[in-house]
Each structure stands twice: as structure tokens, then as C-alpha cells.
């Protein structure tokens, strides 16, 4: 009996040692995060451009930059961050359960998700649209040529239901081949397992750049859907939502004002522009509303960069970029005809 008691108590103690005891929900997310000492942010299994591991074991990408920005805003240190990888299917429940503070994982902002899942979407990081990739030599010119085709798609996403809608609307009788994993989906397509891949055009562009002969593949002009990809937080904590939202706006605003990670120190010291001075915390009390330090936006720009820098690095033509042109797309700044627009910071 003694032995059993001992074992039980040891097991209990060990379990307590490992189990993080989360605090009661009365505390705000910001307080919890500050007490914990780092931000928890969820991304997905590696996908080029948005979130991927480099050979040093560090997460990088446009969506990861959101996570970095929040950590920089709160702690002034992008390394105060814990990144988890969640599967497509578990992402919303996992956020709602409190496994993380922020979901930055190419999730499409839809009404049902925003209103029914206990989560709130913030500003889109990337405006995307669903399309088809086909081999160039297949002779397919538009989506209407796909009658009776097999199309590879990842399961449990809006992509799958958009494909069904497209097929039904146009009477195409497309059969979907579903995959849990991007890797397997693309491999199957490359080996001829399906006639086309459907997915967000941006991510497909990234994937095509990885194919053995990128020039052999073509993205069709059809756009099946609007895909505003936005980060999400748990419903009900407005202060936390504000922090994440304005961390994003700060990056967009910085680009508009011409602040980059390279010149931010100089501008902070010498700029006469009141917008820049307010944003970087030289004058005014903008930070108080968020409950952050004065230099929260400065830290973001200094350590993460503005939106344009991140876009070039990961989505554009940087060494790790996947080469999606920004000019003339929805992802250009509003001053250049795109949709990237930040409310004024004053």
C-alpha cells in the first residue's frame, strides 16, 4: 500500500510540475501574457511565404512577422515568443480553448467563423483569391475547361467548399481529391495524380516556384473566391484585439510614412513630421490606450520592419521570397491602388 501511495503522490507531483496552471479567466490576456513572459502564437505546418522553418530551426514568414510584431510591441523583444504549429482542422478550437493568444495562420475571414466560433478576426495580412494551377501542356485555358477533372485540394478548408460551389454553379462535375498535407497534395499533382490543384493563388505561386520546372505550370485567370487572410484572437478581450490590430496597422502605417527598420532610429531622433513623432512615441500618449510602453511601435518597426519590407522578404523577390508581384495587386498600399490601408494613428 505504501508503495502505491508513494507512486501516486510522485505521479501527482510530476503532473503538477509539468502542467501549467492557467489563471482564471478574469485576468485579461495582456496580463496573462505579461506574467507568462512570452506571447503564444499559432501558425501551421510549414508553408512557404507565410510560415516556414529555416535550417536553423527558426520560424519565418509573413504570418510569423505578425507574431513577432505583437511580441515586440509588448516586450520590446521578438524572441519573447512561443510559436506552435497547429493543423488546419484544430486551429480554431485550439485558439478558442486557450492554447494560444493569437492565430496567425492564413485563415480566411468569413462571417460564420467570425460569429460562430468564439473568435474574432482582425485586419487582413494578405488579400488572396482562390484559383487553379494546371500544367501548361494540358491545353486548359479557363476553369470551364475542367469538366470532369480531378482536382487536388486540402481538406477541411473553405477551399474545398468553394471548389464544390464552383463545380455545381457551372455544372462541371469536378471530383475533389482531398489531402491533409500540402506536401502530399502538390506531389500528387506533380506526378499527375490530378489534373489541377486548387488553392489560394498566392500560396500556389509559392508552391509553383518550388516545382522542378516552374515554367510548365500555369495559374488560371478564374478567381473562385475572396480570401482575406487575417489573424484571429479569442472573442471577448477587446484590449488584446486592439493590441494585435494596431501592431499590424503600425507596420502598414510605417510603410506609408516611409519608416523602415533601417531609418527608424534616425527618424525617431530627427523627424519633424508629427505623424511619425506620434507613432514612434516621441510625442503624444497613443500607447496608453493599448496599455503598452511608449516605444511599442518603434520596437515593431526596428525589429520586424514595416509591411512592405516583410512582404518583399517573404512574399516578394527576397532570397526567401516566393515571388508574388505586389504592384497592382490588392496587397499594394492604398496610395498605390491596393487595399492595404491603416486608419490614422493620432
Amino acid at each position: 500500500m505504501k508503495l502505491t501511495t508513494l507512486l501516486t503522490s510522485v505521479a501527482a507531483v510530476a503532473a503538477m510540475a509539468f502542467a501549467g496552471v492557467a489563471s482564471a479567466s478574469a485576468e485579461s490576456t495582456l496580463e496573462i501574457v505579461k506574467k507568462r513572459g512570452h506571447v503564444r502564437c499559432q501558425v501551421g505546418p510549414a508553408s512557404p511565404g507565410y510560415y516556414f522553418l529555416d535550417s536553423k530551426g527558426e520560424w519565418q514568414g509573413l504570418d510569423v512577422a505578425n507574431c513577432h510584431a505583437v511580441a515586440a510591441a509588448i516586450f520590446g523583444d521578438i524572441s519573447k515568443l512561443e510559436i506552435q504549429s497547429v493543423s488546419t482542422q484544430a486551429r480554431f478550437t485550439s485558439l478558442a480553448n486557450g492554447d494560444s493568444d493569437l492565430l496567425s495562420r492564413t485563415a480566411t475571414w468569413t462571417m460564420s467563423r467570425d460569429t460562430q466560433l468564439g473568435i474574432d478576426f482582425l485586419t487582413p495580412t494578405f488579400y488572396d483569391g482562390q484559383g487553379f494551377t494546371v500544367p501548361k501542356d494540358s491545353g486548359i485555358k479557363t476553369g470551364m475547361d475542367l469538366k470532369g477533372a480531378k482536382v487536388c485540394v486540402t481538406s477541411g478548408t473553405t477551399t474545398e467548399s468553394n471548389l464544390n460551389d464552383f463545380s455545381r454553379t457551372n455544372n462541371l462535375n469536378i471530383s475533389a481529391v482531398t489531402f491533409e498535407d500540402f506536401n502530399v497534395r502538390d506531389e500528387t499533382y506533380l506526378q499527375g495524380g490530378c489534373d489541377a490543384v486548387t488553392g489560394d493563388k498566392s500560396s500556389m505561386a509559392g508552391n509553383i516556384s518550388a516545382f522542378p520546372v516552374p515554367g510548365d505550370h500555369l495559374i488560371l485567370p478564374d478567381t473562385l473566391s475572396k480570401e482575406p487572410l487575417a489573424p484571429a484572437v479569442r472573442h471577448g478581450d477587446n484590449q488584446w484585439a486592439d493590441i494585435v490590430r494596431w501592431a499590424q496597422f503600425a507596420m502598414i502605417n510605417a510603410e506609408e510614412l516611409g519608416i523602415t527598420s533601417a531609418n527608424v532610429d534616425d527618424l525617431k531622433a530627427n523627424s519633424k513630421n508629427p505623424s511619425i513623432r506620434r507613432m514612434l512615441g516621441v510625442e503624444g500618449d497613443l500607447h496608453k490606450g493599448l496599455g503598452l510602453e511608449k516605444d511599442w511601435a518603434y520596437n515593431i518597426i526596428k525589429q520586424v520592419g514595416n509591411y512592405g519590407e516583410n512582404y518583399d522578404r517573404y512574399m516578394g523577390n527576397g532570397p526567401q521570397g516566393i515571388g508574388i508581384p505586389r504592384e497592382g495587386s490588392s496587397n499594394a498600399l492604398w496610395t498605390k491602388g491596393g487595399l492595404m490601408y491603416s486608419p490614422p494613428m493620432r
Partner: protein
Amino acid sequence: MATGVSGSEAVRVKPQEKFNFFQDERVRSVFFQILTVAIVGWLAWFLASNTAQNLDKRGLSFGFEFLDLVAPFDPDFKLISFTAGVDTYWRIFIIGILNTLYISFLAIIGMSFLGFSLGIMRLSNNWLISKVALAYVEIARNVPLLIQIIFWYSVIYAVLPRLKQSLDLSFGAELAFLNIRGLYVPWPVLGDLLWMTFLALAIAAIATYLFRRWVQKRQDLTGKSFPLLLPSAAILIIFPGLVFLLTGSPLSWDIPELKGFNFVGGASLPRAFIALLIALIFYHSAYLAEAVRAGILSVNKGQGEAAMAIGLRPNKVFSLVTIPQAMPAIVPPMISLWMNVVKNSSLATAIGYADLVAVYMQTSLNTAGHAIEIVGMTMGFYMITSLTISGLLNIYNKRVQLVER
């Protein structure tokens, strides 16, 4: 003895007897059992109350009504029909079970054949053959099944031709095709009068059985043997064949044909199915080979030598003396391997074959929620299958024991 106990000893014994009440085995046993049940009961209550509380907090409910809801997706491999937008989660559950059983059944047949052959190869006199079998066994057993499945799926399959260059397995007759998307074979379309052929086949089978018994009896009585193979074959083929022709050949074939983007008609097996099947067979046959080898080695050497001494030829010794005696040692591990095949087929979820775990425990769980119900139902299916198989094993063990003693 009792009368001889002195006073002082009686005094010493008495408190010990009192103590014995707690030391008494029955008392202790009851006490411990109550304690165990209490602890387990408390644990169950604790978990259940937590769950109820958590469900309540998240605004979830417990119940099986969701099974009547329309499932918003369409499994890409199914043995029974499924209409997207009409059929329910319950049908998804059934489709998943059928898919799991279907691939398990085929894998069990394949791995049993291959495993027996490999086991015998392992004992071959030919050094080369036995070493090749050994290498096969070691590789298959020491590489995780999941890696093997992904390997077969993505690497080996890459050698198959594309759609337009499909491999014609019927050598130009354009009946069966193999390409990157899977295997396409003709599928029988049953005519109205086909049941008569089946009836004829059954009659022929019974006739063959009676014929064999007669031959056996005759051999036992007279020692003379009678040719068995040819007459049986004749009965089995000619009679049903005649009936088939007389009823007007009521059977046609639906042949796969390339139309547009795909083969239409016939029956097709998707690539994930084939990869999973190969991996399951490859992996489990190695374990079976070892069981078969151990079983054969467990048969006393003298048995074989004695059989040789009475003049049986080596292959007769093997099939009539060694194997029958090895079976009791082979069958139990073989049946538990069968169970492993059923369980391991759940790794299908990694490559997208629509087995029970993939369509029900993953996709349905994701779209419908209800984790407890869905996990419970899935596990329940595996438990029932497992109980059935171990029940079969028990029956077999009883029969073998009766024969032995």
C-alpha cells in the same frame, strides 16, 4: 494441541489473533477491493464532472443527434453510394468502417500468403534464399510503418506512368490500366439469370467434397489411391460452365475507358489505397514470417525424420507432418497480427485514404464537433473487431487443445 497450550503462550497468542482480524486474507482482500473500486470510481466521477462542466462552459452538448445531420463533404473512396448534400454522418461512419474492413481484409490475405512463403524461405537449404528472406524481414520490421507507407506512396509510386501513358495490364486488350492515379480494372455487371450459375457452382462444390471423402475412405480401406485433381476440376468447371452458357451468358463486364480527364467505368483503386495495401502487406508479412519460422522449428525434428523413414517424400513430409503440427504454434500469433493489420490500417490518415479514422475521427470531428461521441464510436468499432478476432482465437485454441490431449 490446544489442550497442551500453557497459560503464558495463550496470552501471547491472543492479541495476535485479534490482530489477525486485519491480517486475515479475506478481510484484507475485501478492503483492498473496496479501496480500488472507490479510487477508480472517484476518478471516473472526477473526469465525468469535469467534462460536463467544460462542455457546459463552452456551450457544447452531448448527444448523438448529429448523426442525422447532413455531412458537408464527400469521401473520395467508398464502397456504398454517397450523395453529397443528402447523406448523413451516420453514412460516413458506415463508409469509414467498410473502407477499413475492405483494405484490412485484402491486406490480411496478402500478408498471410507472403508471410508463409517468407517463413518457409527463411528455412530454405539455399543459403542465398534464406539470407534474402532474412534481409527482407529485418528491413520491414525495423523501419516504422508510417515511414514505409509514405515511402510507398510518394517514392515508389513515382515510377508509375502518367494518365495519358497508362500501362495496359492486359497486354494491348485495353481491359485493365495502371497509372499514377491508381489501378483500373473491369467490373462484372450481373445479369438476371446469373443466380443459376452460382447455384450450379454450389452443387458442384458439394459434389466435389463428397467425391473427395469417398476417395479418402477408399484409400483408408483399400490403400489404393484414386486420381483426385482432374475429376474435381472437371466437376467444378464443366457443370457450372454449361449452366452459364445455357442460361445465355448472363454476365458482362464494365470496362474502364479513358474519357476526357479520367477513366470512366470499371472499378478503380486509388493510389493511396494501393500504397497502403503494399505497406501493410510488406510490414506485417515480416512478422508473420518469423512466427511461421518459429512454429516450424518448434516441431520436433524426430517427426520429420520418422516421416522420412516411412518413405514419404520431402514435400509430403512438410505438408502432411510438419505444417499440421506447427499450426497450433503459428495460428495465435498470426491472428493477433491480423488484428494489428486492422489497427494499423488507421495510418491511412497520413496519405488520405478514406478509412474510419480519416473520414470519421478527423474530417467529421472537425466539421461536426462532438469529440467524445465520435472518439467513443471509433474506439468502440476497433474494440468490437478485436473482441471478435480474439474470440475466434479462443475457439481455435480450445479445438487444438482437445485434439492434442
